[in-house]
């Protein structure tokens, strides 16, 4: 399923909100709707033209059960539509929509995701995704777990604090060109939040939303001048317990990349990596065998804007948008979920040669 798919499917449009520290005056659907309208406007499609809709979000961020049902108002869910939801980053919703199109049941799909971290304390909220027997009762927050991984990398001689600071600086410099980013340009690394990770090694906490439209074959060509064809996509998960994993490596990313075809064919010009912490970029570069010739996170990545549940979908969207604009011909997009890169999704996106 993951390689040589039976149908050509492409990302034909991408839209995202600004990532903001707080959006108190907007409900989730109010935050989401401009993004949905934007992505539909780009293709000229109406919601009634869309064959399948899939979304990603988390009740734990909202603090309310079934919170995604309210957001459905934004896509016009009456009369009833073909719709699904993943309690994960929208990158996994995109995967589900891609599979749906591959089955031949539909030619178009709308994928969106959103997250508001501002109502709660996202570091604490994310502890509730941990093993409830051995981990969750200790409340190890997301920065603490990433810091354990960072120290393991430093002990292994694979990075050090100055190198991590360099990743932070490069990401936020790149974000100067991204009007949706939350942190743009130079800023101090700051104090240790949980050592060895400093403030600058951690992502901003923010609210945001993103949406893409997928289409198959000729439909994609009608909707987009230069579709970003999904040549392969796969996602893999590692053991839940951190203590059985080698935190300096990401076998799941490597396996997903292999099955997505990332190690075959022409080299990548661009990679959008979902690495909320600087140290995770070190792990991902190694697993994906990315060298210095690849532009990594020209958008600024999750270190510049990390709306939880949307940041992974934004990586796929940014990689596709680079192809739409003709700035990229072959891009790798990666999304992660869970502590210390527990789950990883890799997609290979390509644009056809320009025809004039």
């Amino acid at each position, binding site marked *: 399923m993951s390689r040589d798919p039976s149908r050509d499917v492409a990302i034909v449009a991408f839209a995202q909100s600004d990532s903001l520290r707080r959006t*108190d*005056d*907007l*409900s*989730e*659907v*109010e935050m989401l*709707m401009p993004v*949905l*309208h934007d992505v539909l406007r780009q293709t000229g499609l109406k919601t009634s033209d869309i064959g399948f809709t899939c979304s990603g979000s988390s009740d*734990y961020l909202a*603090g309310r059960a079934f919170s995604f049902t*309210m957001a*459905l*108002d*934004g*896509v*016009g*869910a*009456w*009369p009833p539509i073909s719709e699904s939801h993943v309690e994960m980053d929208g990158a996994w919703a995109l995967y589900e929509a891609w599979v749906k199109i591959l089955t031949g049941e539909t030619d178009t799909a709308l994928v969106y995701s959103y997250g508001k971290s501002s*109502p*709660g*304390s996202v*570091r*604490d*909220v994310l502890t*509730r995704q941990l093993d*409830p*027997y*051995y*981990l*969750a*009762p*200790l*409340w*190890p*927050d997301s920065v*603490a*777990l990433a*810091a*354990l*991984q*960072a*120290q*393991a990398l430093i*002990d292994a001689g694979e990075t050090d604090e100055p190198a991590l600071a360099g990743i932070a600086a490069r990401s936020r410099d790149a974000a100067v060109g991204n009007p949706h980013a939350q942190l743009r340009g130079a800023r101090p690394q700051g*104090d*240790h*939040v*949980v*050592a*060895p990770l400093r403030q600058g090694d951690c992502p901003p906490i923010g609210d945001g939303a993103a949406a893409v439209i997928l289409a198959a074959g000729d439909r994609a060509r009608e909707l987009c001048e230069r579709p970003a064809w999904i040549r392969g996509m796969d996602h893999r998960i590692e*053991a*839940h*317990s*951190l*203590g*059985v994993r080698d*935190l300096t490596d990401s076998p799941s990313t490597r396996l997903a990349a292999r099955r997505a075809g990332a190690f075959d064919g022409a080299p990548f010009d661009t990679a959008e990596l979902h690495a909320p912490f600087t140290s995770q970029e070190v792990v991902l570069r190694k697993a994906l065998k990315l060298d210095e010739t690849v532009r990594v996170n020209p958008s600024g990545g999750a270190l510049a804007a990390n709306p939880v549940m949307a940041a992974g979908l934004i990586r796929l969207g940014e990689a596709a948008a680079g192809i739409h604009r003709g700035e990229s011909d072959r891009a790798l997009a990666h999304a992660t979920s869970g502590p210390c890169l527990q789950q990883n999704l890799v997609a290979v996106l390509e644009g056809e040669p320009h025809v004039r």
Partner: protein
Amino acid sequence: MTATPATLRAPLVVEFPFTRSLGPVQAAFLTGLRERTVLGVRTEGGQVLVPPVEYDPETAAELRELVEVDATGTVTTWAWNPDPRPGQPLDTPFAWVLVRLDGADTALLHALDAPGPEHVRTGMRVRVRWAAERTGAITDIACFEPYDSERDAAPARPHDGLFDEPVTGIVAAARLDYTYSPGRAQTDYLHALAEHKTVGERCPSCSKVYVPPRGACPTCGVATTEPVEVGPRGTVTTFCIVNIKAKNLDIEVPYVYAHIALDGAGLALHGRIGGIPYDQVRMGLRVEPVWSEDGRYPDHYRPTGEPDADYDTYKELL
């Protein structure tokens, strides 16, 4: 023009004491901690996993062979936490550590009590500090503490996993604090309601008036922005008779709970019907809201005395 009132905000606390049952391996491990005994499980490949799991993370084979390991071990990685957060094992600065206990092949996550980061390093020796009161939970290990001794190479010993009064479940208590904000549309609705007015919003595309408004038309998928005052009178479109008294609810049963289409609204709200015997409530009954002193929403709806509405006037709103 009056200034737009500030978006409402209110504390929202989510608390859940999930009661979870334990399988044979986790039950033995957590009961063991209560008895100051650390158990692991041996895989088919001979690895000893601590903390133990019931299925091999590599092969998915069922694991049942329990072994005992030492309460001393070696730090495999660590992170200094200068600012402990609520619920974490220590309330003074500490190190998060992954510890490979002597006899184990995998590492356990916990806290290390150390005076400062300069006292912590990968490879340092540590031992369990047991909690004074132990109940059969991971928190029976209060934390780790530095332990100045070489590793004794004692391998894991077989253990039958049997204890008196085994722990069979845990209560995973959790509390998360949020500040809830309902957004612009619902803020406007709640502000109007405080003035005893019910204000919906009209969809610019299909003209339906949503009440309470949520900022979007679920049919058209567009923002609703035009405020429209509806009611105060309305029509009962459908109803049910409640016969069981809810806890902490000071309403005598039986009573009627109804869908009420306020005049001018495109869909029905729900509310309690009072001021009429429960068995005389009917579809089409005309009602109006009754506000209690300083109430922020109608306490209930009562009959207006008007003739009943024609079915045709509300059949689309059922």
